[in-house]
């Protein structure tokens, strides 16, 4: 790799060096404030390195591991920005929950670096390495509250299922390698772009899809999500919902966005339809907001998958637009819950999360959560509606009737449980709770920014949408 190509990976370098810096800091002096500061600085610089890319344009064709192309850099930027939001929102979260806080930030930076590598890679080897770095860091992050049995349980579940599905992914990659002799994504795409790919290729793709669907918590590979979201600390649930999904969607777009065979399209469509319907149906019975949001994330990934299943020129833009609105909304929703858990830790009980009385005790958080829930439900004048509308556009244009019907039905179901959660915040509180935590001003301002962006993007989406379409083409 030439010097220029190394420089293109500057954001990943910054994240790695940031993790090393925190490791060194921990050796000398334990201080959560310092670790946070280094983490935030690393993430900000990484984001700047994405906005102002170094090392010239993408590298040459054959034998490359990474490509800093438009799609890759966009997803890298999205991943780093989401991670930055997660890092900001966990201010004060660990204070009453865990003794040792510094390693959290090391793992966070490493997980982001892994996800970033997944977004930029055009070869299965660095992709898999990035996937494993992300997964292993997440094992530690999910289990971070060592005294909490649920966290450890969630981490074990995630470990086992991630390992199994990663094995499926590798097996599928091996089958494709056997067929094509290459691990580059371009060669793999060529293998199933033909009209009738052979059984080996189809089996390979199927097994790889198992691994990918697990990460995206698509139905029927979704059963880990509610338990893991519930057991993990809230900032990590946010991370799962945003960074993890964005990294995997990047691979899906690289592999399946072009001309692919009908069978593969049908499988992706099936995954999408099952997720849209199953995710929403399963969320109906949930009362715990974290579990509900876990199931709903399956449904939202189903919506994001519809343009990929339909194909056509606008598919990449549509999926990415949906993902961006989903990431913003998730950050707002989970961020509000995190800020609430920081202020009143007694709300987060063993099997639930008490949101009653939020309107009177924390009107600002209630407002942010309300906007986020309305956006998740796809209400007009929110960003979530615009994302859903764009996906619907692609679906109707491609005459994918079943997918469109599933989208419509799923949206109605979704409206019910999001509304129900919103109503809960207006109910009077059962008891007055002790306000223990600090008022995290940085986190609250970020929440304000997110809520404002959700509304602005809902009313005036033109500029952002046109800019996205221009960047990705």
């Amino acid at each position, binding site marked *: 790799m030439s010097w220029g190509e190394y420089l293109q990976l500057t954001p990943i370098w910054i994240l790695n060096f940031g993790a090393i810096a925190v490791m060194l800091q921990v050796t000398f002096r334990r201080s959560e404030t310092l670790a946070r500061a280094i983490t935030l600085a690393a993430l900000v610089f990484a984001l700047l390195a994405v906005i102002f890319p170094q090392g010239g344009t993408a590298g040459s064709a054959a034998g490359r591991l990474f490509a800093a192309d438009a799609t890759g850099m966009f997803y890298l930027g999205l991943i780093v920005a989401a991670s930055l939001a997660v890092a900001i929102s966990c201010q004060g979260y660990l204070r009453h929950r865990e003794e040792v806080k510094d390693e959290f930030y090391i793992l966070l930076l490493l997980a982001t670096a892994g996800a970033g590598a997944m977004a930029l890679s055009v070869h299965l080897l660095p992709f898999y390495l990035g996937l494993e770095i992300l997964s292993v860091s997440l094992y530690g992050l999910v289990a971070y509250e060592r005294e909490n049995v649920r966290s450890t349980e969630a981490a074990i579940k995630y470990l086992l299922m991630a390992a199994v599905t990663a094995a499926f992914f590798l097996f599928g990659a091996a089958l494709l390698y056997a067929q094509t002799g290459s691990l580059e994504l371009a060669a793999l795409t060529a293998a199933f772009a033909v009209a009738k790919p052979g059984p080996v290729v189809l089996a390979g793709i199927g097994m790889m899809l198992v691994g990918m669907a697990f990460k995206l918590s698509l139905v029927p590979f979704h059963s880990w999500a509610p338990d893991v979201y519930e057991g993990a600390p809230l900032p990590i649930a946010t991370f799962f919902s945003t960074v993890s999904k964005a990294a995997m969607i990047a691979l899906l777009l690289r592999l399946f966005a072009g001309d692919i065979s009908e069978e593969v399209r049908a499988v992706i469509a099936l995954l999408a339809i099952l997720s849209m319907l199953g995710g929403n149906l399963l969320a109906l019975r949930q009362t715990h907001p974290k579990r509900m949001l876990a199931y709903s994330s399956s449904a939202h990934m189903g919506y994001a998958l519809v343009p990929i299943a339909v194909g056509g020129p606008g598919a990449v833009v549509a999926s990415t637009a949906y993902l961006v609105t989903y990431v913003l909304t998730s950050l707002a929703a989970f961020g509000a819950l995190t800020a609430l858990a920081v202020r009143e830790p007694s709300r987060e009980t063993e099997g639930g999360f008490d949101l009653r009385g939020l309107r009177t005790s924390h009107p600002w958080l209630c407002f942010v959560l309300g906007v986020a829930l309305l956006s998740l439900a796809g209400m007009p004048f929110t960003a979530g509606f615009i994302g859903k509308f764009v996906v619907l556009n692609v679906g109707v244009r491609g005459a994918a009737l079943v997918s469109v019907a599933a989208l419509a039905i799923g949206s109605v179901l979704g409206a019910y449980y999001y509304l129900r959660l919103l*109503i809960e915040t207006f109910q009077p509180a059962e008891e007055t709770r002790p306000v223990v935590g600090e008022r995290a001003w940085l986190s609250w301002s970020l929440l304000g920014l997110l809520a404002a962006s959700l509304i602005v993007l809902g009313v005036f989406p*033109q500029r952002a949408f046109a800019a996205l379409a221009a960047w990705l083409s």
Partner: protein
Amino acid sequence: MTLPILFLLPVLAGTLLVLFGKRLSASTAAQLAVGALAADLALALAVFWPDQPLDLRVSWIPSLGASFHLYADGLAKILVLLTLALGLLSASLAGREIDRRPGTYQGLLLMTAGAIVAGFLSADLFLFFLCFEAMLLPASALLIGWGRGDGRAAALRFFLYTQAGGLALMVAIVAVFFAHGAATGIYTFDYLVLLQNPLAGPSAFWIMLGFAAAFAIKLPLFPFHGWQPRTYQAAPASLAILLAGAMAKTGAFGLLRFAIPLFPEAARTIAPWMMGLGIAGMIYGALAAYGAADLRRLLAYSSMSHLGLLVAGAYSLRDLGYQGAALQMLAHGLSVAGLFLIAQLLEEHAGTSDFASFGGLWQGAPRLGALAICFAMATLGLPGSANFAGEILLLFGVYGAWPALAAVAVLAPVVSALYSLRLTQRIFLGPREGGGLARDIAGWRLLAGSLLVGALIWLGFQPNAVLRAVPAPAAWSGPPAHAAATLPPPSALGGQPVSGLAVTLQGEENKK
């Protein structure tokens, strides 16, 4: 131009009230809301006075083909004025009715009214859809926060039913976008552009069903009315006025504006079904209203009954049917508002509008009784009221399309009389039951009621004032073509107001 102000003013005023008006007293909040709506109504009257339609188009989301296009023709103007007037009445009533967080209540009421006005003014399918959905949110919030009885369940039902229709509408408008684009090469959501090339063929039929489903649920049309009785019972009277008087008209407006003109061939195919459902709903609603045990349920079913006839007349695809629908929307809005005003007074006194709690109120409250009789007579379609004028035009429309159904439709005043007279008799006449009212209707509520009665009577004798403004569009010129597209004004015929109808009937007989 001033068109956006007509809905921005209530929406912004409402938002300010919701954000900052938590601690306002009921009277201050009512004064602010009434002031905002009165200013808006005055502005609307001033802007709408000249006879030509108003048009405003601003580019909004070109990537999606959506523009910010407002268009105020006669129908839209009438409905906007109706919404603002009813909003004014609601806000004043809420000042009396709501004692818990009145500032927030008035703010949400203003936002609902603003969203409804925006819906009536939209001439872009995307914008219309956004307003159609957006008006649900403040209305649901009002139901949840201030609902009588189980507001939460009623609100969820209302929201989900309407949302289901809304999703069908969303898919349908995207389908129209692509179908129109494939046929003409122009990809847009703009209503006036889409109107020039209406869609035809089997796909157009399914798309039209999406539109019709959404509006059928909104109206509601039998049998999609599952959300209505509970919602009308749970809503505070001021909200119920806005729901029954204005929001239900959004459904009718959608049919008249979008579902029929954009798909004339599909509309002709489905017309017999819709007319049948409309008349069935009319009979069913009237019978259910007759069997109702309290005034709110009666009003819910009576509303369904009237709007059923309206849909039948609209789908007759005759010009008289269209004009009857327009007039009936106005008349029904006014009369149902009057009845909810009465209901609010009764509830204020007795806490319930159950028929069992009232009886013989006329003795103690003659003015209230007089008003109630007037509204009841209007509801049953007594000649001289605007409702009669609307109904007779609708019946002419139905007769022109399906004479056998018109024989059933003619039962409209009969079945309406069942429950209207029952309502009057149970509450105001007969032996005194449950104690009388503390005092008779007085003050501004008496004034509001009298104004409503006055409007109904005036429109009953001078319907041309409204009909002149709503000439039937091309989709309603079903065979045989009538000699007169509108009723000629009385002055043109030398002071014989009935001759217009005679001319039309003769024209029909000549063509047979």
